[in-house]
């Protein structure tokens, strides 16, 4: 049995600590000792996994509290600061700045309505309503998600998390007039991958998105219920 794996630390001895480790409150040294045992003990490993799931679920019970007015505005400012001196790639820096800019615009609207009406929850501006998603379906089963983000340019995103195939795939969108646009190619590893690229077409014209093989075989399709 697993007790023989490490004579210094037995299953009985680690029982006391598994809950503390799952809850993230064990001391570093003891945690390391116990995890060395758990690594080679299927029984304790399974128990720790179950306790960790419970710990994660308990965290979801944290009470929700409305942050102070201006929270998003101050977050936008911090995003700007954090984007400055850091050695980030050009696209990442651009994305942080873009997020900050949108947050400022939206928060401006939100704070304006807050001041105007005294409501705690400002109405969500239209700018946040331009994400449209649809499940990527294969034979009736969901394998991922396709998202169209309207803008100038609009963007297409795909997130695949349970495909049964791997390798290079092509993303195409079918437009309202029936025209098919190839958006780009990306790799799936172990049935998993995430990818995005700008669209030439307007988001509102996209009716469906699909993944196809190099040979043109359609692997999965996402149909948008309403014009994106």
């Amino acid at each position, binding site marked *: 049995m697993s007790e023989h794996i490490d004579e210094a630390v037995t299953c009985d001895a680690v*029982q*006391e600590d598994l*809950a*503390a480790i*799952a*809850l*993230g*409150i064990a*001391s570093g040294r003891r945690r390391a000792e116990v995890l060395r045992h758990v690594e080679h003990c299927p029984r304790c490993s399974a*128990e720790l996994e*179950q*306790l960790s799931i*419970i*710990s*994660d*679920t*308990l*965290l*979801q*019970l*944290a*009470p*929700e*509290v*409305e*942050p*102070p007015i201006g*929270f*998003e505005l*101050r*977050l936008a400012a*911090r*995003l700007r600061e954090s984007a400055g001196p850091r050695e980030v790639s050009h*696209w990442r820096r*651009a*994305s*942080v700045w*873009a*997020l900050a800019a*949108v*947050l400022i615009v*939206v928060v401006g609207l939100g704070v304006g309505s807050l001041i105007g009406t005294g409501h705690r929850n400002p109405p*969500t501006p239209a700018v*946040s*309503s*331009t*994400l*449209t*998603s649809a499940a990527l379906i294969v034979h009736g089963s969901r394998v991922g*998600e396709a*998202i169209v*983000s309207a*803008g100038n340019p609009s*963007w297409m*995103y795909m*997130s695949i*998390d349970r495909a049964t195939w791997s390798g290079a795939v092509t993303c195409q969108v079918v437009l309202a007039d029936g025209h098919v646009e190839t958006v780009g190619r990306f790799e799936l590893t172990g049935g*998993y991958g*995430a990818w*995005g690229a700008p669209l030439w077409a307007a988001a509102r014209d996209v009716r469906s998105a699909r993944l196809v093989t190099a040979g043109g075989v359609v692997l999965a399709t996402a149909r948008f219920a309403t014009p994106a």
Partner: protein
Amino acid sequence: MTSDDDSVSDDALLSSIALGDEQAGLVFVRRYQRRLFGLALGIVNDAGDAEDVAQEAFLRIFRHAAVFDPRRGAVSSWALTITRNLAIDALRLRRGVPTNPDDRVFLELTSTERQPESAAIASHDVARARSALAQLPLDQRRAVLLAALYGRTAVQIAESESIPLGTAKSRIRLGMAKLRTAIVNEEAL
């Protein structure tokens, strides 16, 4: 938030954030700001510090969105764990004394009557955990929630509850064991 935004999964939002979609970032902030701020406030017990913690948590989430692996757990657990750890660090840095919530908070948190304030947490697992927690004796419930939500160690719980360290450890261990039994048994049915 529109129904379209609500329908986008957390995983997909993070993927979009990693690819530079500012609108996905906005949706994510609006979806999670009350939860992250609420958790931080419960730990640091100061609105200003809690805001710092929640904002730092968002910065880290955005910074690491590209490396998040959905196979290793839910986005919500990841985001809340980052927030909890930052709040505990903040409390330690200012040498703050953790203040335990009174019993009312624990009864409220575990009330099966309680309606979640956002649809994002209205999951079956959460309802089941709340129900299982409500079955625990109050002292075990307090110990488990103080550890899980507020990051209190057994030593801190022993001090704040004025109980021996061994008793604090037992309450945490027994409480978690009962939750595990209740939830695993329910899954097996």
